[in-house]
């Protein structure tokens, strides 16, 4: 018969709390905001990191992307009739070397780029012309929407095949059938053989929305390696053999090692002994980026967790404070209950349940706030937010825990009151 009947106590606890609605609400406000803000911040962070992780994953965790970069501080220019060609970046030899000497490498894809005007029928648009091999489409993994992608034969035969992106195709054709149509790009004619889906990628994604893909052999034949630019009053020229090299590694475990090997190989051949020379390439390892993004996310979550911990501590202290006041107010009542025959443990149970109900309700309100707020953010700021389920469950559990931990002291104090003294109180 010595039970602390939980449900009846919960009802009584709720009743007591409702007697002082404003006070109960204000007590719990700290917890509400603490829980709400943590959930909301987690949601925003999760949404952002999810987006970043998705982008990076799309690059393929088995891939390495090497870009040619223009070394800083040098400029090819001409004034008064003199011309100066700036040669930099990745070389065809680099690609061959990577493919042939590094054991983990499954495949390499060379990439040349140039901006040109594309004209199809009546319409025209600015395109990025991409000269590449058939491997590109495997590595970049965009689904084919119509026709086909480039093949080995296109490259071998110096074919004038051209693959457009969906985005480009729509702009140029507006509904008309694309496949088989001739397209004029930079004063050269190609035949459209296929359309691939284009993604709106981030900074690391190798493809752009308005790309047109042709065999690299064809590109090299028709445009060479030299690119001329005319600026106000002067002419500049750059010679770049390859703008990018995509490397597919056999095993995810070998990615980092292969990337390191590529770095040292390129360093050897591009700089050699002249360490003062500026670097004209950059190696991107999506896997490393992925790991870094996840590490950043972990750090973010730890920071968030610490803030949450502090706010919960503050909220809990607030609850304890109010419960102590409540115990003092109800000293007489405690004396009466004890006189009637309530045991100390039953008094502890009564007050502990009240405190826990209070903190749990506060937690629920905080969760409601924390779920609502990110939705507003997504609606107005168009940022993705995801509320992870674990944050809700964890918040609920912690709110209850706070109630128990911070309610124990007031509850025990209530139980230790001497009934005779308590009855004399007030």
């Amino acid at each position, binding site marked *: *018969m010595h039970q602390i*009947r939980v449900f009846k106590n919960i009802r009584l606890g709720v009743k007591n709390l409702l007697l002082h609605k404003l006070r109960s609400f204000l007590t719990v406000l700290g917890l509400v905001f603490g829980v709400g803000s943590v959930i909301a911040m987690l949601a925003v962070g999760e949404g952002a990191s999810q987006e970043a992780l998705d982008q990076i994953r799309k690059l393929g965790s088995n891939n390495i992307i090497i870009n040619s970069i223009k070394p800083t501080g040098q400029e090819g220019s001409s004034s008064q009739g003199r011309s100066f060609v700036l040669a930099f970046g990745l070389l065809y030899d680099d690609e061959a070397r990577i493919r042939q000497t590094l054991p983990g490498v499954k495949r390499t894809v060379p990439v040349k780029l140039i901006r040109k005007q594309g004209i199809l029928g009546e319409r025209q648009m600015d395109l990025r012309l991409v000269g590449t091999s058939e491997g590109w489409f495997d590595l970049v993994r965009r689904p084919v929407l119509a026709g086909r992608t480039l093949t080995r034969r296109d490259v071998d035969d110096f074919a004038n095949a051209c693959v457009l992106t969906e985005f480009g195709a729509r702009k140029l054709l507006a509904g008309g059938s694309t496949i088989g149509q001739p397209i004029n790009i930079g004063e050269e004619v190609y035949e459209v053989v296929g359309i691939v889906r284009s993604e709106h990628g981030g900074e690391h994604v190798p493809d752009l929305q308005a790309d047109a893909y042709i065999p690299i052999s064809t590109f090299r034949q028709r445009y060479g390696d030299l690119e001329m630019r005319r600026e106000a009053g002067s002419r500049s020229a750059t010679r770049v053999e390859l703008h990018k090299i995509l490397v597919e590694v056999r095993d995810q475990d070998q990615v980092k090692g292969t990337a390191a090997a590529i770095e040292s190989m390129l360093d050897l051949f591009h700089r050699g002994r002249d360490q003062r020379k500026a670097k004209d390439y950059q190696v991107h390892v999506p896997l490393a980026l992925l790991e870094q993004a996840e590490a950043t996310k972990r750090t973010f979550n730890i920071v968030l967790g610490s803030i949450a911990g502090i706010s919960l501590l503050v909220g809990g202290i607030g609850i304890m404070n109010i419960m102590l006041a409540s115990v003092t107010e109800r000293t007489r009542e405690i004396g009466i209950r004890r*006189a*009637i*025959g309530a*045991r100390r*443990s039953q008094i502890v149970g009564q007050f502990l349940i009240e405190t826990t109900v209070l903190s749990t309700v506060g937690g629920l309100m905080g969760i409601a706030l924390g779920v609502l707020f990110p939705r507003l953010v997504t609606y107005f700021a168009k940022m993705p937010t995801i509320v992870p389920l674990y944050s809700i469950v964890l918040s609920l559990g912690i709110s209850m825990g706070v109630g128990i931990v911070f309610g124990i002291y007031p509850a025990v104090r209530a139980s230790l009151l001497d009934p005779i003294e308590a*009855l004399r109180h007030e």
Partner: protein
Amino acid sequence: MTAETPSIPARPQTQGRTLIALEDVTKIYHVGTQMVHALAGVTVSFVEGSFWAIMGPSGSGKSTMLNILGCLDHPTAGRYVLDGYNASDLDDDERSELRLRRLGFIFQSFNLIPQLTVRENIELPLYYLGFDSHASADRAEELAEMVGLADRLEHRPMELSGGQQQRVAVARSLANDPAVLLADEPTGNLDSSTGVQIMELLTDLNARGKTIVMVTHETHIAAYAGSRLHMLDGKIDRIEQ
């Protein structure tokens, strides 16, 4: 009280078993460095069905005696036997248990819980006894009827007069069917006519067999009791029957 309640003949005070026995009970308080002998060797027994009034000037030990009888306090020395239980050396939980099952209290200032209704106040001992809500509600109604407040069950104490509140307190004290009712100045906060009402209620309960021990300083209230114990300086001064 009402025509329906059956009348039970009053039990003769000298017959019946001993319900309460105090043997050389002493209570010493330490106030700073001084020792205060609140009770200095009290020996007395009360039989079942008796109605006792404990009287005495302030400092005589009557309140201390009531506290010990009520198991709210324990003797420093001596024995206290209540309804067969040795109540002298119990721990807090055991004393709480004894109060719950064997005792009923009536206080000068009523001591109802203001946030609870009349019904819930009466039910309080039943809650701690583990009664389910139906049995509890039924018994509360029964008791409320007995004291004439069946129509006020859902009211708050605040909405009742002093006399009504004390009647609720009496109903509550009977909820656990105690062996002894302990009353501390039950009419102290009531006007004389309401006080008479309450005393008539207690007399009626005693007539039906309830043992009552009451502390009072008013002689005309003490007159309702069958036996009177006069305390002085922590000892029994005299007993009137």
